[in-house]
């Protein structure tokens, strides 16, 4: 087993070395993009009454008067010390905010992706058994329709139907109803924290607030899942080894079981890319439902020109996607007998 551990260590080492330039590129791109943007955060912060001298003083205080590359070098040095800067709007250290907001977003994304996989993978497999049959055509149409719906609009319509007309859902504001006491923060995920102290009231309220956003997000996530599963299974069923197994007289059920095991790897890889793209897409759903998660925070920061927050937000997304891809590729490497 020692060989195995060394293999994993080498894999992680190589992967980190390859990812570092990509992450650095993303940080650099974000840094330059927001600074070259048309927004002037100093004018926004100082307010309309500020004169030129005040603006310049503030600019110097925020170190925005230095050359761009010097600012970037400064930022990198501080990142190396674990300091992501301070939000100009709220005055709170960015790292604290990320710790505080990330669990809310993760809750939403993980629940949605899990549900989408539970719905999408069986439908995709069923569709692949008879390509272009009626089930395939219908599932394709429905999934494309779900995929084509703008997320924020779907959220609005869900609020209209389930909050305004049916009165089933709580007001789309926040993660808990006002009269419910929040559980003590352990993980930051209200669901997990409520479970830890067996606070069922908070749990129920949190679930009720998550129901609509998760449903909307699942619709969005399930469509590509169906499509991808179908494509993968069709490709496997048409491969030489499946034909060989059939020719050997294995029953259809056995052949399918053998084939589906081979679908695990590409599906897992796809799940990873789903997870990362949805984490970024969460911003709009959080915005519509006021879930106060990472995405909503990042979106607001872009609109307000809060540079440190935007940088912290994009960096978090990039690190998360890198970690997800690394874990998934690691699992694939371990379960693939060919490697």
């Amino acid at each position: 087993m020692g060989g195995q551990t060394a293999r994993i260590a080498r894999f992680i080492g190589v992967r980190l070395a390859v990812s570092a330039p990509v992450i650095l590129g993303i940080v650099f791109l974000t840094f330059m993009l927001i600074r070259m943007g048309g927004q002037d955060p100093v004018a926004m912060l100082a307010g309309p009454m500020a004169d030129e001298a005040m603006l310049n003083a503030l600019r110097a205080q925020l170190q925005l008067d230095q050359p761009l590359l010097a600012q970037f070098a400064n930022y990198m040095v501080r990142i190396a010390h674990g300091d992501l800067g301070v939000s100009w709007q709220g005055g709170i250290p960015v790292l604290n905010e990320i710790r505080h907001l990330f669990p809310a977003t993760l809750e939403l994304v993980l629940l949605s992706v899990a549900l989408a996989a539970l719905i999408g993978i069986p439908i995709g497999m069923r569709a692949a058994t008879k390509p272009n049959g009626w089930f395939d055509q219908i599932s394709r149409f429905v999934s494309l329709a779900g995929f084509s719906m703008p997320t924020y609009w779907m959220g609005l319509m869900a609020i209209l139907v389930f909050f305004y007309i049916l009165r089933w859902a709580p007001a789309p504001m926040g993660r808990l109803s006002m009269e419910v006491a929040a559980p003590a923060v352990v993980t930051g995920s209200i669901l997990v924290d409520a479970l830890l102290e067996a606070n069922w009231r908070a749990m129920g309220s949190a679930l009720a607030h998550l129901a609509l956003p998760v449903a909307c997000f699942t619709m969005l996530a399930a469509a590509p899942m169906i499509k991808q599963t179908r494509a993968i299974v069709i490709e496997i069923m048409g491969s030489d080894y499946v034909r060989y197994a059939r020719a050997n007289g294995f029953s259809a059920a056995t052949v399918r079981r053998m084939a589906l095991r081979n679908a695990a790897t590409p599906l897992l890889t796809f799940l990873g890319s789903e997870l990362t793209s949805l984490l970024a897409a969460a911003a709009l759903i959080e915005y519509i439902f006021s879930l106060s998660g990472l995405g909503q925070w990042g979106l607001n920061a872009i609109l307000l020109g809060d540079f440190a927050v935007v940088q912290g937000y994009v960096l978090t997304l990039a690190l998360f996607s890198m970690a997800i891809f690394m874990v998934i590729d690691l699992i694939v490497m371990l379960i693939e007998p060919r490697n």
Partner: protein
Amino acid sequence: MLAMDKTKAQAWAHGFYVHAIGLTRRSPTFVAGLCMVLFFLGVAIFAGVIAPYSPTESFSYDILRAPSDRFIFGSDGNGMDVFSRVIYGCRYAFGIAVPAGLIMVGIGLPLGLIAGYKGGLLDEVLLRTLDVLRAFPTIILALAVVAATGQSLISMVVVIGVLDSPIFARVVRAEVLNLRASTFVKAAVAMGNPAWRVMVVHILPNAILGATAQLPMRMAWAVRISATLAFIGVGIQAPTPEWGAMIRQGAEYVITGEWWAALFPGLALMLLVLGFNLLGDGLTDILDPKRRGVGK
């Protein structure tokens, strides 16, 4: 003479009918998508004839009227006719999707062709750019760039087209990599053709079909993302009759039950995006049934 023309026309109509039936059988998604996109294109062209009012005409006594005979989709918070605005919105959707699509092809096709055929540094740069784009939230990138380049329609089209061109290039690159290994390309090289000739004359015509199937899906993306940007408040602003901006404007009334100002533009947006997606999906099907479901 007239009789002959008539039979000719009949034969043509019959041929069209047979083809249409055959195509519908082979790929109902393609036909459905084509019909939807053509419908919206027609609406965009004849918007001036269809719309009962000007899209920015404000009736100050009719603010937020529910759908009725006078305003069949209701009126919005400015007292403008939602129906007329949705109709004129088609022009903005196509006005963004078509030029953005052309930019994607214009940049992505040569880039993918050269990167796939020559490999080397350009290929490496393309792949790394794709890595960055994959990890970078597109909406954030688009937001930042649109905010930086100004909020005009033209800058939005250019940003969307340029941002998506590496993704288009990847599709072309994959096609080219397949073709490069084929016998006919090797033969063309062995005959002493220069590299540009092999690329343009031998590879391009064969790679272009697979890439074409991607175009409607990328256009769907362009329509979607431009509406999303407008919804957030970047890019096209109200009272321009653009669907995303209309949803933004209607969103504040949804929670109090005035649903029409947000519902109809969203419905139109969804149907057009669905049409483009169905078209692309069907096209991939027709061109190569084995390779469906690849891409974002």
